């Protein structure tokens, strides 16, 4: 599904991501963990096209997407959420989501000026997709609230829905449970499992080890921009390098 070859990103002298090669399989939950500043978010930024890589290659679904812009990558079916959950704060939740499906529509200026059938049809579809996405994350009841007014956990869910509205094949989730309390974290984990059940491929960054270990099919560990380990939760938990660099003895396999 996603093949990364020798991916590197340098900021000035610092290699935020250094020579990473990995492949993520379809319909699986892939997790990326690592200490703060390891380069996880940067890695996501590279895949999603938010920033161009210094070198290396990214192949998604058989297509070379290296160097494409973020919107082009999104068109191809990669959607993401941000570490600091960003929404269109001043718009209602539903309006947030309607735009989410825009990239799958074709109406242009002429359709708008002439108010064509196609436009009306596409607007209807966007609305339906938005509602579906909202139903999927279980938030139909907040559809008319202003995005800035809803709770942190609801924001995370809306961010999911927003990503879903683009009809992605792959979802990149940056700390989806950050700032969410344990009880609600469970809900978010369930949501992620539900996504995979519906055919999505998920890639997530998270510091909540219980969640990761229960959820992930595959974990990649970054440290100082380099991949230090890769494997199943069980393998990672007992990997001495990972314990040393990240987990600490407490979280290690008992």
């Amino acid at each position, binding site marked *: 599904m996603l093949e990364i070859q020798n991916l590197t990103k340098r900021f000035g002298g610092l290699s935020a991501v250094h020579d990473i090669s990995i492949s993520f399989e379809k319909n699986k939950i892939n997790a990326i*963990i690592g200490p703060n500043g390891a380069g996880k978010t940067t890695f996501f930024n590279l895949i999603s096209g938010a920033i161009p890589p210094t070198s290396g290659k990214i192949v998604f679904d058989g297509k070379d997407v290296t160097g494409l812009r973020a919107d082009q990558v999104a068109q191809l079916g990669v959607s993401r959420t941000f570490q600091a959950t960003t929404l269109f704060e001043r718009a209602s939740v539903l309006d947030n989501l309607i735009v989410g499906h825009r990239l799958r529509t074709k109406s242009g200026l002429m359709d708008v000026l002439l108010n064509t059938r196609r436009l009306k049809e596409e607007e209807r579809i966007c609305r339906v997709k938005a509602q579906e996405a909202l139903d999927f994350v279980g938030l139909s009841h907040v559809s008319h609230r202003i995005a800035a007014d809803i709770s942190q956990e609801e924001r995370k869910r809306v961010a999911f829905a927003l990503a879903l509205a683009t009809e992605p094949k792959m979802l990149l989730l940056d700390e989806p449970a950050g700032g969410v309390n344990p009880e609600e974290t469970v809900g978010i984990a369930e949501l992620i499992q539900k996504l995979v059940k519906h055919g999505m491929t998920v890639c997530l960054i998270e510091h909540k080890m219980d969640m990761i270990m229960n959820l992930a099919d595959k974990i990649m560990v970054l440290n100082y921009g380099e991949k230090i380990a890769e494997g199943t939760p069980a393998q990672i938990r007992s990997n001495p390098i990972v314990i040393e660099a*990240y987990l600490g003895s407490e979280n290690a396999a008992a």
Partner: protein
Amino acid sequence: MLQLENVSLNYGSFRALDNINIHAKEGELVVLLGANGAGKSSIFLTTSGLHKAASGSIRFGKTELVGMKPSAIVEHGVVQCPEGRKLFPAMSVLKNLTLGGYVHRRDSKGIKSTLDEVFAMFPILHEKREMNAGSLSGGQQQMVAIGRSLMSRPKALLLDEPSLGLAPLVVKQMFEAIEKINKAGTTVMLAEQNAYAALRIASRAYVIEGGRIVMEGSRDELLNNEAVRKAYIGA
């Protein structure tokens, strides 16, 4: 020592805090638990003077803090490490920390020694001291924020979700550091999602919901409360 009495806060027509009564005695470590949006940050922001209480009183020792300017509150020794860090992103880490000691700006020796303590606590900051704070990763920035608040040698330290976005290993170190700061005599008020870790080092705790205090108790009372365990500890 730090006492909030009947404090209320409104954001426009929305009542974020409703007659809050909490206190922390000298040397205590008090934890505020609560779901997202419960009002923890609002309590801290009101205490620091960044938001204006609609009613009620906040006293530190004998001093009334309500109506005081944020800067004056810091001078009185009540210091907050805010949620969202609020660093000076285009200044070096060192300068960020130095400015943390702004209220002691005439005591350069004191600043130097506090700075050394902070670097000892977070060695990575020493390594990155010449880098701009904004270019650090989320977790590193959190360390700068905590370090900066320590620089003013607070008598009462308000920590708003210090573990947010930190790796487990660092979270552990962080709580150790907080415990150390508290043991050294600083009154600490700590808002946390990470309830278990927080309660372990706490003296007492409050549970906040919808802008109200719904429960109060000693560490053990809360650790053993079924409902609390279920809602905030998750085990």
